[in-house]
């Protein structure tokens, strides 16, 4: 059996990085779905997404740093830019994404929140008060600029694994796509969870369910060719797939990821949204069902990373 070098810290990092990318992306789309001078329910999605987006990826980056053999040397990642190394590109991409997500988060603070934030600064940092600018008008520009970066972060987490030729379980472009759509779907789920506690977020939920269904359907139709192509590929790839087809990750993959983490929430969301779209029925918003669905998606997203990180390292060329 192969030695597992990347463990649970990396699993968490890949999940949290994807979650932030998804939060930012969905929030950014919502930013363009309303007229600036009219109140819209979509501002709640845009605001919540923008406020939540920077934090998971920041925690993820810290986990990534503490996973290094010499975490105090992490700055060396930023003394080089190696375009052939997915990790080098990813490190710079994460810095860029963190910056854009933070500025975007600041842009979505209300005036009162901004004033409260600066009022809480310790006396030594009081000079930062001069940065108390209103940058509301930057929101759309930040969303526009940050969207490709968030997609980049979502894809990169998969490219990091997919670029390793010696691990047949990973070495396909489908992993990058799978991780991207899973990231976008977990972002939607986090927003559903965040809005579930609010007062009747019906319009918001309809939009989020719609996005989420698209992302999960795409994710499902990447899992299928991943399995089919793998079975039709060379022996090393077929052998590596045995890890989820009869091997140690079979139940985790089929029951907990695909069954509970992908198909169950997909069916629930379709059941909720399809009658509204097709038969023009009223949307029956159920807070507990929405929160449960979101938790299942988040759990599925985490499991996907867990299965891929561990199974990939256990796979090898013959």
């Amino acid at each position, binding site marked *: 059996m192969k030695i597992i070098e990347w463990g649970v810290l990396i699993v968490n990092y890949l999940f949290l990085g994807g979650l932030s990318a998804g939060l930012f992306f969905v929030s950014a789309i919502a930013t363009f779905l309303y007229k600036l001078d009219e109140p819209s329910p979509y501002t709640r999605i845009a605001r919540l997404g923008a406020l939540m987006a920077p934090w998971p990826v920041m925690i993820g980056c810290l986990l990534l740093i503490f996973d*290094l053999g010499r975490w105090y040397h992490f700055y060396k990642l930023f003394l080089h830019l190696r375009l052939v190394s997915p990790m080098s590109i990813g490190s710079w991409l994460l810095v860029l994404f963190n910056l854009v997500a933070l500025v975007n988060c600041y842009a979505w603070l209300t005036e009162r929140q901004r004033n409260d934030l600066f009022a809480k600064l310790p006396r030594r940092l009081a000079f930062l008060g001069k940065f108390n600018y209103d940058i509301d008008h930057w929101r759309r520009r930040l969303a526009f600029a940050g969207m490709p970066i968030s997609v980049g972060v979502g894809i990169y987490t998969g490219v990091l694994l997919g670029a390793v030729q010696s691990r047949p379980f990973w070495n396909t472009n489908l992993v990058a796509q799978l991780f991207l759509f899973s990231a976008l779907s977990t972002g939607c789920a986090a927003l559903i969870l965040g809005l579930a506690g609010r007062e009747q977020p019906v319009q918001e939920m309809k939009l989020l369910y719609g996005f989420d269904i698209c992302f999960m359907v795409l994710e499902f139709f990447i899992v299928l060719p991943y399995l089919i192509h793998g079975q039709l590929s060379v022996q090393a790839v077929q052998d590596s797939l045995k890890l989820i087809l009869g091997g140690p990750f079979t139940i985790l993959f089929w029951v907990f990821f695909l069954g509970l983490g992908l198909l169950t929430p997909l069916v629930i969301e379709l059941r909720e949204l399809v009658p509204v779209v097709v038969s023009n029925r009223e949307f029956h918003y159920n807070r507990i069902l929405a929160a449960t669905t979101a938790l299942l998606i988040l759990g599925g997203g985490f499991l996907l990373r867990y299965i891929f990180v561990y199974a990939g390292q256990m796979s090898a060329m013959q």
Partner: protein
Amino acid sequence: MAARPKRYAMVVDSKKCINCKACVVACRAENSVPLAYSRPWMNEETRGVWPKLMAAFAPEQCHQCDHPACVRVCPTGASHHRPDGIVVVNEAECVGCRYCMIACPYDARFFREDKGVVEKCDFCVHRLERGQLPACVETCPSKVRVFGDLNDPKSKLAELLSDRQYRVKKPEAGTGPQIYYLI
């Protein structure tokens, strides 16, 4: 005329190997590798049923690839390719991300928990610079390993590769391994 650049490689005649592991011990002593780790290792294979048994031993170490996956994925350039073909790790630049270990198709690298860096065989570059052979080559009692310059047609290595049939491990990885196993 400019001197031809060197391209170090190794030939392994595994039929001569008696699995004494002197190479492993010599390497540990030469490179101060703790007991928990090893740069070269032995592959053992037994076939058949007693009394008709066959045991085969084949030493292995970093294949000093022409297109090393470890060098490609390294985010800091700590893993790099010397002009003489040897793949080395610059410990000062290594952050210990272990991406190279995951990328290596031969699992030829290991993580030194005590130092927080990745290590591997480097053909004993410090000995080569003194005009000596790698420790594993020098110590082998049955002369399993032949070390030399591929670009020197008069070398024993080049002679063996032109006279004998050989194979490399996992050529499908596309990394261009430079440990040649005589058949």
